[in-house]
C-alpha cells in the first residue's frame, strides 16, 4: 500500500468516525450493508475506468453503457426467454465489442478518446431510450430468476453481517485487476504506454494493441457491472439510469491517485476512492443535508483532497530537492526549471 493509499484510508476513517459520532445509525448493520453494496456496484466500473485513465485515455460513456446493456439484459431474459447465463455472456460480449470499437477509433483513426467516448455517451443513451420507447424496463409480475437474483443481488450472512454479493464481485475483480496492473507484464505495458507512448513504441511494445486491450477490458467490466446494477435496481428508466456514473468513476480514480495525464494509479487507491465517495453519499443522507447538495459535497471533498495531495507532493519535492542538493546533482539540473520556480 502506498503512502497515497494510506492517507486516503485515514481520510475515510476520519470521515467515517465523524459521521458515526454525529449519527450512530451510520454503524447500523443495515446501513453498512447497504453502503457496502453501493461500493461493490460502483467499484467495478470505477476499476474499469482506471484502466483507461492509466493508459492516458478517458472513458465518458460508462453511464450510458450501463443503461443500454442493463435494458438489453432485462429484455433478453424477461421478454425473449433467453437463458440468463447465455444473456450474461451476450451482454459481456457486447461490452467487449463496445470497448473494441472505442479502442479502434482512438488508435487507428486517431480520434481523441474524449471525443470518441463523448459520442458514445450520447449514442448509447439514445439507443437505450429508443429501444424501450422511453418506457421503464423491468421484471413483470411473476418473472423470477431466483438463482440469478441471489447471485447478483443477494447477501450472505457472514458472522451476522449480511455481505452483499456485489462486494464479493468487486473483491474478485479488484484482486485480478491488481495482479494484472501491478504484477503482470501487460500491466507494465499499460503504465508504460500511459507514461510515454512514443518511448513504449520504441521499446517494441505494440502500443495500439495495448490501448485497444485497455478499452476492451473497460467495456467488459462495465458490462458486468451493468448486469449487477440492473439486477439490483430491478427496473430501469433508460433516461436516467446510470447517468453521471462515468463521473463517479473518474472521481474515484482521481481520488485514488490516478493522474489524468496517464501512467499513474493503483487499484487499491481506486477502491478506496469508491469507498470514500459512497461514505460521503451516506453522510449526506445521515446528517440530514438536503440531498440536492449531494454533488456539491462530493465535489468539495474531491477538490480539498486533491489540493491537500498537491500540497503534500510539493512539500515532498522540496524536501527531495534539498536532499538532491546534498547529492550534488543540482549543478546538472536544467536552468529553465529553476527559473520557473
Amino acid at each position, binding site marked *: 500500500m502506498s503512502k497515497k493509499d494510506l492517507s486516503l484510508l485515514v481520510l475515510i476513517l476520519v470521515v467515517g468516525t465523524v459521521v458515526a459520532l454525529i449519527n450512530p445509525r451510520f454503524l447500523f448493520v443495515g446501513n453498512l450493508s447497504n453502503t457496502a453494496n453501493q461500493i461493490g456496484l460502483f467499484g467495478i466500473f470505477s476499476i474499469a475506468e482506471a484502466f483507461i485513465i492509466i493508459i492516458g485515455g478517458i472513458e465518458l460513456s460508462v453511464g450510458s453503457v450501463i443503461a443500454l446493456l442493463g435494458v438489453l439484459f432485462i429484455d433478453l431474459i424477461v421478454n425473449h426467454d433467453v437463458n440468463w447465463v447465455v444473456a450474461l455472456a451476450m451482454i459481456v460480449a457486447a461490452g467487449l465489442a463496445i470497448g473494441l470499437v472505442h479502442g479502434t477509433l482512438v488508435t487507428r483513426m486517431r480520434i481523441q478518446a474524449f471525443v470518441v467516448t463523448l459520442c458514445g455517451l450520447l449514442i448509447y443513451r439514445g439507443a437505450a431510450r429508443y429501444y424501450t420507447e422511453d418506457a421503464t424496463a423491468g421484471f413483470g409480475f411473476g418473472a423470477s430468476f431466483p438463482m440469478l437474483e441471489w447471485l447478483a443481488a443477494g447477501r450472505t450472512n457472514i458472522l451476522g453481517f449480511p455481505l452483499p454479493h456485489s462486494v464479493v464481485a468487486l473483491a474478485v475483480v479488484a484482486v485480478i485487476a491488481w*495482479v494484472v496492473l501491478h*504484477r*503482470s*507484464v*501487460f500491466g*507494465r*505495458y499499460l*503504465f*508504460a504506454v500511459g*507514461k*510515454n507512448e*512514443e*518511448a*513504449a*513504441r*520504441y*521499446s*517494441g*511494445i*505494440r502500443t495500439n494493441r495495448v490501448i485497444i486491450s485497455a478499452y476492451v477490458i473497460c467495456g467488459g467490466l462495465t458490462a458486468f457491472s451493468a448486469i449487477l446494477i440492473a439486477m439490483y435496481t430491478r427496473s430501469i428508466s433508460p433516461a436516467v439510469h446510470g447517468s453521471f456514473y462515468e463521473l463517479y468513476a473518474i472521481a474515484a480514480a482521481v481520488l485514488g491517485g490516478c493522474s489524468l495525464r496517464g*501512467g499513474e494509479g493503483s487499484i487499491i487507491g481506486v477502491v478506496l476512492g469508491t469507498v470514500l465517495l459512497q461514505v460521503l453519499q451516506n453522510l449526506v443522507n445521515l446528517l440530514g443535508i438536503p440531498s440536492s447538495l449531494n454533488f456539491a459535497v462530493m465535489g468539495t471533498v474531491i477538490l480539498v483532497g486533491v489540493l491537500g495531495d498537491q500540497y503534500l507532493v510539493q512539500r515532498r519535492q522540496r524536501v527531495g530537492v*534539498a536532499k*538532491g*542538493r*546534498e*547529492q*550534488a*546533482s*543540482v*549543478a*546538472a*539540473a*536544467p*536552468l*529553465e526549471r*529553476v*527559473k520557473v520556480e
Partner: protein
Amino acid sequence: MSEPFLELIDISKSYPGVVALDHVGLQVSPGEVVALIGENGAGKSTLMRVLGGVVEPSGGVIRVDGTARSSLTVADAIKAGIAFVHQELNLFDNLDVAGNVFIGREPVQGGPLRLIDRKRMYADVAPLLERLGCDFAADAPLAELSLAQRQLVEIMKALSLDARLVIMDEPTSSLTLAETDRLMRTVAGLKAHGVSIIFITHRLNEVMQCADRAVVLRDGRVVGALTRAELSPAAMIRLMIGRDLKSLYVPPAAPPGDSVLEIVDAVTDTYPGRAVSLSVRRGEILGLAGLVGSGRTELSRAVFGIDRLRGGTIRLDGEPIRIASPRAAIEQGIYLVPEDRKGAGLLLDVSITENISLPDLASYMRFWLVDTERENENAVRQRERLKIRAPDVRTAVGSLSGGNQQKVVLAKWLSMRPKVLIVDEPTRGVDVGAKQEIYGMLRRLTDAGVAILMISSDMEEVIGVSDRLAVMHEGAISGFLDRSQFSEHNVLQLAVGHTIEAEGP
C-alpha cells in the same frame, strides 16, 4: 579590447554538502566571445544562473559597469543586458516570429483595450531580421521554422531587449553542420556589433572556430583560461578532465566480417524520389554523416519499423526480412537508440530497472507476471557494466545526467542480443567522460560481433569513432569514405552534395 563591463569576482555557491562554485572569476568585455567549457556538473549552469539572477551566490562580488553588488535579481540581469539562448528553446509553436520576439511585451494600442499593435510589432522586427540575415519573414509561423531558424528567433528576442551579453547554452547540439556554420557567422556578426557572447558547448572545434578565449571549469573551479593563441582541443580536453585523452579512435580487434544489415534501395516518405543503399558489416561501426534533414533519422526509423518503407528491401545476414513494427525489428535483433532520448528512449519518471527491462519484459515473465528479482539483478549488472552513476537501480532515470540517461538507453538493448545496433546521435548532450565510455562500449560491442550504424552530426565523433563512413545528402547516399579518406573537408563536401576528387590512397 575595451574594458570589461561585467566582472564576476570570487563567486562561490555552496549547497548543503556540496560546493557548486568555488571562488570563480570571469570577466566579459564588449564584443568578446568567451567559451565556457567543462564536463557536465562542472558548475557552468550554476555560474550562468548566477549571471541570470536566478541563483544568489554565497560569496563574491558581481560588478556591472563598475557597480559592485553581491548578487543580481532577474530584473537586474535583464537591465544589465544579459540574455539567454537556452538549449531547449523557450518559444511558442503557435505564434509567428514577431509574436515570439515580443512575447510578454507586445506593443499595444487602443488604450484600455490593450490590443496588440501588429503593424508596429512587424516593423520593429524587420531590422532584426535583416541584421541577422534571416531567410524567413516576420509573420512566418514558428511551427514552420527549422531548429536553427528558431534559434535565430531566440537571438532576435535577446537583441530586441538590447542585450549586451548573450549566453548560449549548447546552441549547436541539435544543429546540422551547415547550420552550425551559419550560427558561427551569426556569432561573428554579433561580435562585430559589440555584443558579447558566452558560448557553452561540448564541441571543441566550435570553440576553436569562434572563441576569443576559453574558460575551463572543473568541479566548481576555474582550472584554466586559454587565450586565442593557446586554444587547442588537446589543451582544452586536458584541462576539462585533468588528464590527457588518447585519440578517440580505437581500431577493431578483428577486420570486419560479412554484411549483416543490407539496406537496398530503401525509399522513405520524406524523400519519395530517392533511394538509399548501404550495408553494415559484422564488427564495424559505420558512421552515417550528413546534414540534419538529409534523411538519416527517417532511414533509421524505417529500418526499425517505426515508419513504413516506401520501397526497397532490407536484408539481414543475406535474407530479405520484412519489418512492419519495432517489435518485428527487435525480434530480428535490430535495435535503435533514438535521437530523442527523453521523448522516445526513456520513461523519465520510471526507475532504471523498469526502463532497462521494458523491451524484453517477456523474458522476465513467469506465469504472465514479472519476475522482479531477476529484473533487478539484470539492472544491477548493467549498471556496473556501463558504469551508470546512480545511487540505486530504483532511481528514476529523469534525475540522472544526460550521459547516464543515454547509458540506460544502451543498457536496454545490451541486456538482449543485438545483431545490429543503430545509434542516432549517441552522445548529444553527454559530457566528455561519459562520451568516452559510450564510445568504448560501442567498440566492445563490435568486437563481440555486432554491426553498428552510427548516425551523428558531431564531426569529432563521426571522424573519430567510425571505421567507415557513409554520407547522406537529400535522401540519398552521396558517398562512402574509408578511414584513409576521413577529413572534415571530405565529409562536408559529400554532405552538401558535392563529390570528392578521387585521391590516391
